[in-house]
């Protein structure tokens, strides 16, 4: 509390007090600020290549993020075992150090972590996080700091549509998915006429569904029913009853794995039997075939990558991955692996760790072969007329079908290994 003495004759005068306080304040501020601004210890010359990423290791994306991490770890290990990436500027191979954090699928956290990766950890290249939403949210951070980010687990068109120069997209984008569906349907005979489309109400599924819807309708297919369901819906009876009423040839669910399981069961309950039935995700889960048995025969699905692809590295990678992690690899692991490969190509070509040189090298890639096929980054105008910058035009989504308890690739034809079972045999007792 204020004491008269403070302002009395024996103590300090008011002005003196204020001056002292200001001086102390400035001293304190300068001191603390100086301490905080001390840079983290950095080696004089680089002796490693730092690659940074944040993933949704906890949260709703835990499963795929974990596999994304596995793919990265394998790639880094493979390269480091061979000594690292050769950087001409240093005249030697430098090992890669992967720095990763958990963003729990939260946008604000991811933004904070990417700031950290850039300003604290001083990474040379960034990799995009898991998920279109998170990637979209963080994408302005590397662009502002002029650090390259390779998005490999986000497929929404909106990300490359921003026109950023430092963000590259490796995974095929959602509108590329639409083209695959169209091409596949067109290749069937007799061509289906009508379709129903149901999607989960989130960014990535919506982009896939919308691009498919637009492309199919433009090409003369008739949409009989369309609906979006909120994330976490567990009762699809309303949707399914509508589908049953409109009886389309092709029924397509852009959904997450567990949705597919529930929908299959509920469809069986309602005895809905279209000529073509497709789930974007779900049939890929090994349990799908074991649970649904003969009913699963002929169900369609999609992937951006599959162990049966004819590219050179695929077989070896699949074998090693399976030995190590006890499951088949999916695009969740393949694309991150390929992203590291792409970085290696670019750094070797650029001969330096300089960002702009690496960027130019990335743009000069012309179909170099990776685990996920040929890679070429260029600008592209999607079927909706939107310009997307720096996407991988070498990538393509695949249509697959369960045949004889196995997954077969049906489309695109140049990587296909089976003919479609059409129409779908339906339910068994």
């Amino acid at each position: 509390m204020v004491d008269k003495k403070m302002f009395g004759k024996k103590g300090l005068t008011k002005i003196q007090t204020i001056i002292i306080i200001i001086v102390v304040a400035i001293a304190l501020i300068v001191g603390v600020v100086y301490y905080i601004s001390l840079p983290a210890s950095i080696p004089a010359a680089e002796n490693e290549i730092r690659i940074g990423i944040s993933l949704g290791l906890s949260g709703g994306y835990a499963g795929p993020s974990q596999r994304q991490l596995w793919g990265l770890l394998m790639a880094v290990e493979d390269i480091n075992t061979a000594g690292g990436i050769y950087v001409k500027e240093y005249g030697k191979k430098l090992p890669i150090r992967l720095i990763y954090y958990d963003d729990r699928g939260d946008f604000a956290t991811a933004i904070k972590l990417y700031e950290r990766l850039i300003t604290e950890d001083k990474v040379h290249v960034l990799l995009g996080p898991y998920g279109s939403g998170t990637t979209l949210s963080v994408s302005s951070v590397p662009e502002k700091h002029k650090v390259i980010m390779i998005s490999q687990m986000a497929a929404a068109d909106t990300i490359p549509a921003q026109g950023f120069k430092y963000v590259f997209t490796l995974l095929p984008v959602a509108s590329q998915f639409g083209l695959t569906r169209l091409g596949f349907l067109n290749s069937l005979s007799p061509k289906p006429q009508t379709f129903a489309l149901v999607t989960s109400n989130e960014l990535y599924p919506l982009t896939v569904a919308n691009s498919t819807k637009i492309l199919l309708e433009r090409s003369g297919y008739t949409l009989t029913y369309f609906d979006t369901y909120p994330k976490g819906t567990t009762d699809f009876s309303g949707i399914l009853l509508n589908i049953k009423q409109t009886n389309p040839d092709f029924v397509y669910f852009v959904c997450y794995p567990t949705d597919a399981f529930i929908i299959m069961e509920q469809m069986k309950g309602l005895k809905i039997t279209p000529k073509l039935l497709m789930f974007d995700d779900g049939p890929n889960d090994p349990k799908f075939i074991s649970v649904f048995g003969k009913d699963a025969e002929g169900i369609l699905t999609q992937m951006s990558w599959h162990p049966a692809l004819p590219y050179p590295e695929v077989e070896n990678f699949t074998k090693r991955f399976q030995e190590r992690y006890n499951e088949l690899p999916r695009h969740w692991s393949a694309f991150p692996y390929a992203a590291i490969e792409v970085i290696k190509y670019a750094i070797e070509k650029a001969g330096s760790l300089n960002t702009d040189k690496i960027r130019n090298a990335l743009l000069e890639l012309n179909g170099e072969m990776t685990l996920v096929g040929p890679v070429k980054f260029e600008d592209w105008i999607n079927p909706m007329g939107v310009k997307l910058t720096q996407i991988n035009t070498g990538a393509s989504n695949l249509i697959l079908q369960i045949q004889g308890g196995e997954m077969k690739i049906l489309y695109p034809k140049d990587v296909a290994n089976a003919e479609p079972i059409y129409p779908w045999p339906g339910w068994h007792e």
Partner: protein
Amino acid sequence: MLWAQLIIQGFLLGTLYTLMSLGLNAIYGVLKAVNWAHGAFIMLGAYTAYWLFEFFGLNPYISVILAALLLTLVGTFSYDVYVKPFIGRPNFGSIMLITTYGLALVLINTARYFWTDVLRGVRLGEAPISIGDISISKPYFYGGLFAIGIAAIFYIFIEHTRLGKAIRATSQDRIASMLMTIDTNRLSRLIYMLGAGLAGATGALITPIFAITPEAGMVLGLKAIMVVIIGGLGSYMGSLIGGLLLGFSEVFGAFFLGAGNQPLIYLLVFVIVLAVRPSGIMGEK
């Protein structure tokens, strides 16, 4: 026969929701406060059935008993820590709401920590029951059957056993019951355990129908609370009406308005009921 399909589906779903809320209603009756952790109990019951199925191949309909028993245990512990210390305080209603919310957070996030957010479900893959043009999936059918059965047993218990009568007495007038030497504290504990057990049983029943994730604990908790409030806190008949109403609004709503809009119906009904007649459909004014 589309209408018949919708009605049957709505009815079966509704009975499950009724069962879900029965326990909550009973707890409210005795404690005069809402147990927010009810949804978490349901979720745990569902996970019990799920893990028993994963590891032992145990049919979820057998797991119902085990889930109920396990949750009764959980209910005991929960009561002692999260409810009992606060009985007798003013604003007990609000306090219990908050502490049981804390309990729900603890249970749900512990579940998330161990089991992550991956959606789980028990997939039996059986053929549906067909009656003419209507097909009912077996999990819905058995779920509804068990729900009705358990509810019936509960009803008999409440109406015709001494313990049940004591519960009803305490619900109606706690002080008078204390004067009649009913040990209301032990009774409160018992009813809480019972409510938790019922929630656990419902959880086991929904695993073959729906997918569960720890977050479902919050969603289901809110649904149970809405059912009970719309029906009228303290009224079992009200829970029945509220539960059936929820089942129908979900099925019909999804069919006519789309799966996205469907939750709005019940939420709007809820908010309107609160604004106009907070005591609920069957509650006293």
